[in-house]
């Protein structure tokens, strides 16, 4: 194993394979690649949060200039499906249709036009006559769960494709949970300090710089080619086929470069309609959502109400840790079940608690639709649990850092939660392999200067500073569910084509996977030509979600490359008349002895043209038995203006254990980006609604993304460990670091001014009000 850690390509910050094409503006993204002469799609979105469509009259719109096709519920197939891109069968209700006779949120689909120009399509929308029977909207968890509440999903043909009760009559997608570990009530009773607090997170959006966009065209054999900004090309192909009643073989999905996703594009929102329009018109069809449409009709993070109950002994041992989660999934239920299950599975195992409780429910409302968002439930749950940990520590007189050092899970330990909670079903038992959380805690604390921390009671004046922290874990892929595959073949010159279904959404996974292949094959990374995410040409992969690509697809690449390497060595053995066992492959050269060698190009030439010809090609698939958690310790220093309630983050340190960082700079970049998104989630980002459920701040201006000017210095510290089950020791890194800022800033706020907030975001007004009602001590 020691030799394996002496890496040539892996663990080096090689240049991202697509960096130059992107830095020079080469046409690479979905809209850049749309053919000339595309029809353009515009959607008539519902102006009502809840309404039945008595009638939709498209006749006048069809006669408008440039209009080539108008679609609505009366002229499209009706097959229940989910837009959530997940493994089959999805843990999401089939509660959507291409178009329905009912609309369930402001921004739901009513009818769509394809026309020669965007302006003509837009003009035709105004000619569609819709008679709405407006229904009472359900705009909060309370309203949804009240006895006699209007039923949002009263259609008889919706169902949940997994064996779990579906309860739309109660406005509930499903109830999830696990058997308590130990006697939870007794665990609370035995505690010297116990807490029971409820925390609530808000509606927010991923807001990648590229909005949702897709185009489709028929090829010469009438197959539909969809080019789309998706994180899940293979799920996209399957779900479009399901929604339209087509066979998967009729559809090819290509993912070019993507302008960011963060989970928003783990959803199939446009592809069904561009495909159907292309079939109906036999023309290429492009649909780009505007920024406002992306905010209103795209996906969001589930707002979740999390009740945290926990208890600790005077000695600092956790006797009980329990979560009860109520998630608002909005008008449709995609991802709700696994998101809520991850509130438990990615959070509870972090601490060794004697008794554990978890339960959750996913609730429909007539608000925007929630989906997958980086962090995936863990973000929402850590907001409360990590603030509770600080309070427990304070209650027994321990420093928060010391409290976590005493209680966090370690290598060789397990948690019953791993076996109990999966994604839509039970989980998989797991013993923690690599865990460098202790080193993360110590290095992060040193970097922020944790020993400067003084209690809030010692602070005075208008501007008060505070230090806060949070400990975190996530997962790496979904065990026994996710599959990734790769194939790799040699070319005449000794280069290799690496074909992967895995989906680089800007994260750099094409580069990381090329590094893994290059390491295995003993070549420089520029000898690996990566092509990814084309359902006709690349092998299957579940796609970019659940922090799976490096760990899962990376192992498929390693296995495929090892397969190809074995074939290379067998050919070289024949060429050199030497036994395979004695050959050394390094730097593109295979040696039997110092003076007897062949190059990879010679091997390729021999295999392709000279003797016993065959294609050197390796193929492999990988399914994981584990979802090894990356760990992190986050630290923040803030300054609170007690006159205005403004919180200014001064400095942020994120120490992360992602196993072996395959590409350290890219791993740092994942961490830094996730941290800033976490900070703005904590402080400013939120959806604001009118009393009738319309989104008020559906623009970048009003929603506000943080700029270079807004950001504090962010220091990412990669603390290496070696995960034996991952490729070259790697675990995931992309999601974990979005989870820390909300609780760490919450803890820093308390450390600064002695108030604790249970509702996000920490707006000036909310902080100011809390300060006003806070009795001086």
């Amino acid at each position, binding site marked *: 194993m020691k030799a394996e850690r002496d890496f040539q390509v892996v663990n080096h*910050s090689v*240049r*991202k394979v*697509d*960096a*130059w094409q*992107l*830095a*020079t*503006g*080469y*046409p*690479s*993204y979905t*809209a*850049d690649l749309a053919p000339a002469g595309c029809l353009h799609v515009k959607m008539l979105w519902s102006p009502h949060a809840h309404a039945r469509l008595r009638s939709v009259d498209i006749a006048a719109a069809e006669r408008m200039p440039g209009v080539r096709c108008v679609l609505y519920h009366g002229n499209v197939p009706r097959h229940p499906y989910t837009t959530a891109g997940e493994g089959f069968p999805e843990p999401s209700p089939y509660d959507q249709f291409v178009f329905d006779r009912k609309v369930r949120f402001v921004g739901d689909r009513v009818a769509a036009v394809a026309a020669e120009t965007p302006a003509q399509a837009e003009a035709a929308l105004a000619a569609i006559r819709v008679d709405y029977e407006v229904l009472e909207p359900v705009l909060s968890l309370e309203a949804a769960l009240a006895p006699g509440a209007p039923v949002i999903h009263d259609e008889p043909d919706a169902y949940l494709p997994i064996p779990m009760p579906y309860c739309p009559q109660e406005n509930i997608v499903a109830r999830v949970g696990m058997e308590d570990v130990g006697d939870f009530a007794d665990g609370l009773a035995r505690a010297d300090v116990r807490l029971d607090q409820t925390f609530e997170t808000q509606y927010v959006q*991923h*807001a*990648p*710089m*590229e*909005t949702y966009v897709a185009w489709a065209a028929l090829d010469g054999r009438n197959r539909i080619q969809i080019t789309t900004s998706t994180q899940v090309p293979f799920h996209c192909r399957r779900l479009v086929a399901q929604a339209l009643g087509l066979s998967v073989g009729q559809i090819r999905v290509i993912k070019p*470069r*993507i*302008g*960011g996703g*963060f989970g928003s594009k783990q959803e199939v929102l446009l592809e069904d309609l561009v495909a159907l329009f292309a079939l109906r018109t036999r023309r290429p069809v492009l649909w*780009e959502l*505007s*920024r406002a449409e992306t905010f209103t009709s795209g996906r969001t993070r589930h707002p979740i109400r999390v009740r945290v109950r926990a208890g600790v002994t005077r000695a600092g041992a956790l006797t009980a840790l329990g979560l009860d989660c109520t998630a608002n999934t909005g008008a449709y239920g995609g991802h709700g079940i696994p998101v809520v299950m991850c509130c438990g599975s990615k959070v509870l195992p972090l601490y060794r608690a004697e008794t554990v409780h978890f339960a959750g429910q996913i609730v429909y409302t007539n608000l925007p639709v929630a989906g997958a968002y980086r962090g995936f439930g863990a973000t929402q749950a850590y907001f409360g649990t990590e603030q509770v940990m600080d309070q427990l520590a304070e209650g027994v007189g321990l420093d928060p850092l010391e409290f976590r050092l005493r209680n966090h899970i370690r290598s060789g330990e397990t948690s019953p939660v791993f076996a109990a909670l999966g994604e839509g079903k039970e989980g998989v038992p797991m013993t923690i392999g690599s865990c460098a959380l202790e080193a993360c805690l110590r290095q992060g604390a040193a970097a922020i200067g944790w020993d400067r921390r003084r209690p809030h009671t010692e602070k005075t004046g208008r501007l008060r500073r505070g230090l806060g922290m949070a400990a975190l874990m996530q997962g790496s892929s979904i065990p026994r569910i996710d599959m990734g595959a790769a194939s790799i073949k040699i070319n005449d010159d000794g280069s290799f084509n690496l074909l992967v279904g895995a989906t680089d*959404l*800007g*994260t*750099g996974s094409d580069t990381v996977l090329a590094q893994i292949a290059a390491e295995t094959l003993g070549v420089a990374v520029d000898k690996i030509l990566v092509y990814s995410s084309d359902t006709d040409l690349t092998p299957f992969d579940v796609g970019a979600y659940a922090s799976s690509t490096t760990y899962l697809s990376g192992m498929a690449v390693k296995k495929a490359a090892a397969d190809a390497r074995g074939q290379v060595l067998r050919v070289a053995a024949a060429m050199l008349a030497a036994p395979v066992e004695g050959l050394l492959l390094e730097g593109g050269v295979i040696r039997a002895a110092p003076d007897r060698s062949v190059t990879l190009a010679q091997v390729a030439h021999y295999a392709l043209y000279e003797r016993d010809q065959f294609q050197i090609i390796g193929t492999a698939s990988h399914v994981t038995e584990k979802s090894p958690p990356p760990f992190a310790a986050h630290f923040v220093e803030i300054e609170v203006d007690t006159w205005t309630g403004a919180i200014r983050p001064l400095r942020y340190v994120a120490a992360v254990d992602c196993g072996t960082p395959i*590409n350290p*700079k*890219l791993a*740092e*970049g994942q961490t*830094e*980006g*996730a*941290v*800033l*998104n976490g900070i703005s989630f904590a402080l400013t980002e939120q959806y604001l609604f009118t009393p009738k459920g319309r989104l008020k701040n559906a*623009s*970048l*201006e009003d929603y506000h*993304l943080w*700029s*270079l*000017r807004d*950001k504090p*210095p*962010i220091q*990412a510290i990669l603390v290496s460990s070696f995960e034996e089950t991952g490729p070259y020791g790697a675990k995931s890194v992309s999601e974990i670091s979005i989870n820390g800022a909300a609780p760490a800033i919450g803890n820093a706020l308390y450390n600064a001014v002695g108030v604790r907030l249970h509702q996000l975001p920490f707006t000036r007004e909310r902080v100011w009000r809390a300060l006003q009602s806070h009795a001086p001590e």
Partner: protein
Amino acid sequence: MNDPLTLHIRLNGEPRVFAADPDEKLLELLRRHGLKGAKFGCREGVCGACTVLLDGRAVYACLLPACLADGHEVVTIEGVGDQEHPHPFQQALVEAGAVQCGFCIPGMVLSAKALLDENPQPEDEEIREKMDGNLCRCTGYEKIWTALKAVIAAGGGGGEDAS
């Protein structure tokens, strides 16, 4: 529909003549003519993915009517540099690992070029001000900042106009 206008624009150093509708935005015109490096990110003049230079100043091409570029000089990412002859900031971004999804990068490069052409040695506050109009959701700006500071430390990279 209004009659198209005839526009004379010096685009990336070359005199060009375009026909454009009076309400067509510069970004639409550029993309219609195959210059796809500038992006639609918001069409609200906020994200900066559409940034181009108009007479050396960084502007939002998504809001700028194309007709206002008539008689002026426009530089897009396609005119800034390529892999063989990159702008120093492009080189620095690539080396720093600052390019994640890359959607914001052309706009970042043009805003930085405008900044550095005017002042090769800007103070941090001036950098923050001039780069404030280019949003990125991937990187947390940390490596973009590192790359820009590296270029400034090396002399600011002015005067390397590929156009």
